[in-house]
């Protein structure tokens, strides 16, 4: 009988406990769609675009600097004397489409772009696919120097497909096939149509710090230019994202970045710079 009372007691405890857990179990049936953090934190890996686009109605203020080559040493303060600036903004029209515009000091270029998502890893696709189309307007070319210049001659078109995959919580990789067409080019040194393939990635070191790298192989590269290789750090500080970087290509437009990389890592000829985003 003692045994029985003991059992009864145990059962009562089990029941009262399970009754309490039942209450939670009754509402715990909601399917937890796993939260997927985006593959990239910044809109750019280093200088190449990442597969991140601004959310709907979100405005990014973008300021980037590329300083002169560190090769100049202390007399040019490791390139700080010769800063070039990109200043612009990007705006999310809806969840999959954004537009951006910026002004670059280098060659006085105005850059306009559309960025649109074609596939999204977060919603089940194996990779995220983004289309990115840019038109660069070079306003550095003076009418006095080029009397026959027309507006069309100032334009460069860039089309890219950004394909990324978040491999793990810490590692994301991206491939970027791209096509660049220059209306004005020097036929002795380069092609008007240039094809290239970029690859980049982001490795999270801590919750708010990541190491980024990218490289572009230009199939139509003239001998005296290099292929761009860049390395950077993402720092997230609340509403800002700060990217510190080193690169061998000073330009910030894709047209210049990919086709006119003048620095050479092997000779200690590279540039320091940063990208800064502020979100409104």
């Amino acid at each position, binding site marked *: 009988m003692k*045994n*029985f009372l003991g*059992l*009864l007691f145990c*059962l009562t405890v089990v*029941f009262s406990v399970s*009754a*309490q857990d*039942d*209450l*939670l179990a*009754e*509402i*715990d049936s*909601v399917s*937890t*769609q*796993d*939260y*997927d*953090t*985006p593959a990239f934190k910044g809109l750019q890996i280093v200088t190449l675009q990442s597969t991140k686009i*601004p*959310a*709907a109605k*979100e405005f990014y203020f973008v300021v980037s600097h590329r300083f002169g080559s560190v090769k100049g040493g202390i007399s040019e303060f490791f390139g700080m004397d010769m800063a070039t600036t990109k200043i612009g903004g990007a705006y999310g029209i809806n969840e999959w489409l954004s537009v951006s515009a910026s002004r670059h000091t280098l060659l006085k270029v105005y850059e306009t772009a559309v960025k649109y998502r074609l596939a999204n890893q977060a919603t089940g696709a194996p990779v995220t696919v983004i289309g990115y189309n840019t038109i660069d307007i070079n306003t550095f070319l003076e009418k006095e120097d080029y009397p026959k210049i027309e507006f069309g001659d100032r334009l460069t078109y860039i089309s890219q497909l950004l394909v990324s995959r978040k491999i793990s*919580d810490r590692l994301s990789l991206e491939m970027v096939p791209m096509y660049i067409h220059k209306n004005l080019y020097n036929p002795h040194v380069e092609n008007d149509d240039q094809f290239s393939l970029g690859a980049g990635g982001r490795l999270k070191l801590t*919750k*708010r710090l990541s190491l980024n790298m990218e490289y572009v192989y230009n199939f139509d590269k003239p001998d005296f230019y290099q292929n761009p290789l860049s390395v950077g750090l993402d720092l*997230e*500080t*609340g*509403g800002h*994202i700060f990217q510190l970087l080193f690169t061998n290509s000073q330009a910030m437009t894709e047209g210049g970045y990919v086709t006119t990389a003048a620095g050479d890592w092997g000779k200690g000829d590279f540039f320091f710079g940063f990208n800064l985003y502020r*979100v*409104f």
Partner: protein
Amino acid sequence: MKKRNLYFILFFVAAMVPFVSHAQKFATKTGDIKFEASVPSFEEVAAENKNVSAILNANNGELAALALMNGFRFKVALMEEHFNESYAETAKYPKAVFKGKLEGFSLKALSEKPKQFTLTGELTLHGKTKKINDVAMVSVKGNTITIIGNFMVKPADFDIDVPKVVSKKIADEVQVAYTFLLEE
């Protein structure tokens, strides 16, 4: 003797089943939780989750609530991303769960006029559990029980670390306000 015992147990279980399942329960899937961690003169740090599940056992006042962390909406999408990625670590800890009790709860004592009850229980989020002891206002209208209340929590209590660079912009104490309209 053994067989008799078994019968006893079976009888007891059979007797318990209707007793347990007879509990009168009120529930919602669209409960509302807001939290506010703003610091005056800095950017607003606040979010709202409108899809909180909650259930009340009207027989004994037991209350359970569940919120998915990725259901919290911020004004700025990037802030929401930061919240999920670096603060709540939603991929690792997708849910916030509350289990507790309205002390001295009685369905008969309720009216359309809100009545005060002490709410005690445990809040679990980010892998940490903390005791909550606060006051909730409970009223009933028709078939709907309304529970409204708020309490303060510290991010540090749940091992959510706030980096130094933004510590001035995020309040040390976060105010959490909830509204549940529970239906039978």
